[in-house]
């Protein structure tokens, strides 16, 4: 034993030595145990190989355990980390600001706190439900209890709480209940421009309107790829709208709807040179801050989702077609003495004149017979081709994802051409009709409408010539003449040199054209000599007023609203009113020998 101790102290450090000594001193220690210690601590060379092997196994085992634990962590993630990951997905992503053309805010993100819970970590769920519903009274207790009872790692308790509620929830001190900072989309202007903006869901996903368009432009992909974008590194998107003008349009439209007891209405201002929609409203509308209202089918955007028979407004297109193809000139005369018969159908004039009309008269008297005859001169194929060129037969695509296909007759015969010539039998979206009339006004270029700010050069790049500049000027002259002496007189706002066209379409009720239910439209070009804006007003089922003699045609209601809109938005949009009317508004026509076009017309009865 002494010998053993000697070798031990030589081979081992003093600590082990002491331990061995303790073992040796222990009185009850048996011989076998002493031998064991001696064996372990002996420094004999022949044992080192097995010891090294032992140490190797030991280390391998330790590393094995570590590796196994790592794999375990990988497979069963830490609950806290899981919450963070779960939270990063539902938490609303940042979206770029939407601005109007002058930089006013239309939609923005604000930071809000949302309360979440980790059901697995809540100790007393019933107590938690009780306390949370006490602080957040609009929570449904039963539903919250159900959600907390689920096996999920993460559930929202309430999105977007106020700072005060947040403080109260914080003071509850509930384990497993926490806060996350989120982006909430707000629309400070409420229902103004709601249809253009659309709205985004609580999770920051665009559901409709421009919000959805932005997502389609790659924002959603960026979020999906895990880029955490913040408000600061997203460039704001400038829309084509003018907030003040949009508000004014909506306000005047609302007044008009109330005055004429219409079911619904829509109005828009289109910049004919750039295709920008400067203002638009469709009533009834909704507040995008409470998106559930948007789903009401009565709240659709009537300008792009609704398709309507545009009525006499389409006569402008028919006359332009006949003029452009050289079938008629401004001096041509059209026979409107008798109703036009086709098979068992007869086409009448609303303002029957029973005489031979000149082309300008066809326009100002809004003669169905005249328009139908002109379309017949062009023929079915020519008519179809022209309307196709004007974009009236295919779906109009803008930034807004909501759009509607026009209702085109399947078997387009001569009768269809005749009725479509004066606006029956072809349903188009009002914005689509605006695009066509805009092309007739702006010198003959068709420019697709946009809801994003665009310069004139950019617009002209994609523009397509559809009619000759002379035709366009003739149309402006006709619209101006109509405002001076014809049906559009009511919208002839002094100083703006307005040109306009009315449209009254009988609505189809149970498959028949109804006499007392009408859809009235009014299109006005401001100013008619150098067109800048095209104003459209559309009223659904306006009622005649006793002071107007009970008439419910467009001249009385849609025209009145359009006049109000021009008067109010003109100064807002930077259109200077002119005291003197332009002396040479239509130079091309004068060159072609229509000197009378430049002489202001007067008189003319109320048609």
């Amino acid at each position: 034993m002494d010998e053993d101790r000697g070798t031990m102290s030589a081979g081992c450090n003093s600590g082990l030595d002491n331990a061995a000594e303790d073992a040796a001193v222990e009185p009850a220690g048996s011989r076998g145990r002493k031998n064991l210690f001696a064996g372990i601590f002996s420094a004999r060379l022949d044992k080192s190989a097995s010891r090294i092997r032992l140490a190797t196994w030991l280390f391998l085992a330790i590393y094995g355990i570590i590796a196994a634990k790592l794999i375990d962590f990988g497979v069963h993630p830490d609950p806290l980390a899981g919450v963070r990951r779960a939270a990063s997905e539902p938490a609303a992503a940042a979206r770029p600001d939407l601005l109007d053309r002058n930089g006013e805010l239309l939609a923005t993100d604000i930071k809000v706190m949302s309360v979440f819970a980790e059901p697995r970590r809540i100790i007393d769920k019933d107590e938690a439900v009780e306390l949370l519903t006490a602080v957040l009274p609009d929570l449904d207790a039963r539903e919250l209890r159900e959600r907390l009872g689920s096996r999920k790692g993460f559930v929202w308790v309430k999105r977007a709480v106020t700072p005060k509620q947040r403080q109260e929830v914080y003071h509850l001190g509930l384990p497993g209940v926490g806060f996350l900072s989120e982006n909430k989309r707000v629309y400070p202007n409420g229902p103004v421009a709601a249809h253009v903006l659309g709205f985004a869901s609580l999770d920051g996903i665009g559901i409709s309107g421009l919000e959805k368009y932005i997502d389609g432009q790659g924002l959603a992909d960026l979020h999906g790829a895990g880029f955490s974008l913040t408000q600061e590194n997203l460039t704001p998107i400038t829309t084509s709208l003018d907030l003040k003008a949009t508000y004014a349009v909506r306000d005047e439209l609302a007044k008009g709807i109330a005055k004429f007891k219409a079911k619904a209405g829509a109005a828009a201002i289109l910049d004919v040179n750039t295709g920008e929609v400067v203002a638009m409203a469709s009533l009834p509308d909704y507040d995008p801050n409470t998106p559930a209202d948007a789903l009401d089918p009565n709240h659709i955007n009537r300008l792009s989702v609704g398709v309507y028979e545009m009525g006499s407004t389409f006569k402008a297109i028919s006359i332009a077609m006949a003029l452009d193809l050289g079938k008629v000139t401004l001096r041509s005369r059209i026979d409107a003495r008798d109703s036009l018969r086709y098979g068992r159908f007869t086409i009448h004039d609303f303002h029957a004149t029973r005489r031979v009309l000149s082309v300008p008269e066809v326009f100002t008297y809004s003669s169905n017979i005249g328009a139908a005859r002109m379309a017949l001169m062009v023929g079915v194929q020519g008519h179809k081709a022209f309307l196709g060129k004007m974009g009236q037969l295919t779906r109009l695509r803008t930034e807004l994802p909501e759009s509607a296909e026009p209702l085109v007759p399947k078997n387009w015969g001569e009768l269809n051409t005749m009725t479509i010539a004066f606006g029956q039998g072809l349903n188009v979206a009002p914005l689509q009709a605006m695009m066509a009339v805009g092309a007739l006004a702006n010198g003959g270029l068709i420019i697709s409408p946009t809801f994003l700010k665009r310069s004139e050069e950019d617009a002209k790049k994609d523009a397509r010539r559809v009619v000759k500049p002379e035709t366009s000027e003739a149309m402006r002259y006709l619209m101006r003449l109509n405002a001076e002496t014809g049906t559009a007189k009511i919208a002839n706002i002094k100083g703006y040199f307005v040109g306009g066209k009315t449209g009254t379409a009988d609505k189809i009720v149970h498959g028949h054209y109804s006499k007392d239910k009408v859809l009235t439209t009014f299109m006005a070009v401001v100013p008619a000599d150098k067109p800048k804006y095209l104003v459209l007003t559309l009223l659904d089922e306006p009622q005649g007023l006793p002071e107007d003699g009970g008439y419910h045609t467009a001249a009385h209601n849609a025209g009145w609203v359009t006049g109000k809109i021009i008067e109010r938005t003109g100064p807002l949009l930077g259109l200077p009113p002119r005291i003197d009317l332009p002396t040479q508004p239509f130079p091309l026509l004068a060159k072609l020998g229509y000197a009378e076009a430049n002489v202001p017309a007067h008189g003319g009865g109320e048609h």
Partner: protein
Amino acid sequence: MVRILNILAIAALIGSAITAYTIKYETIFHAETIVKLQHQIKLEQDQIGTLRAEWANLTRPERIQALADKFLDLQPVALNQIVRVEALPNKTQRGDAIGSKLEALGLAEPTNTPGDANAIDAAVSSTPAR
């Protein structure tokens, strides 16, 4: 000699260690300050965003019009109230037109107010006593 060198070397070592650690701790401090400031900036930016939204909400045309209708005696701009710059009359001669009119009326001369009259009387009456 060697001992002095050794001492110098040790001193240099300790010195450099102290410098290195000082720099390290300063770096950590600055890094923390940066993080704190960034956090603060983020907070401020969020607040700016919220305030911008609030401002936009408070200045929305709908609200302004309602307030204007209620509290202001204003009318919408009529088109005949807008004129071109050329239509404005030419600039007239500079000067204080009202002032010159008052001058012409002789209002600049001293006036005898009742109080002044007493004072003058007093002055007149007191003169002989002097």
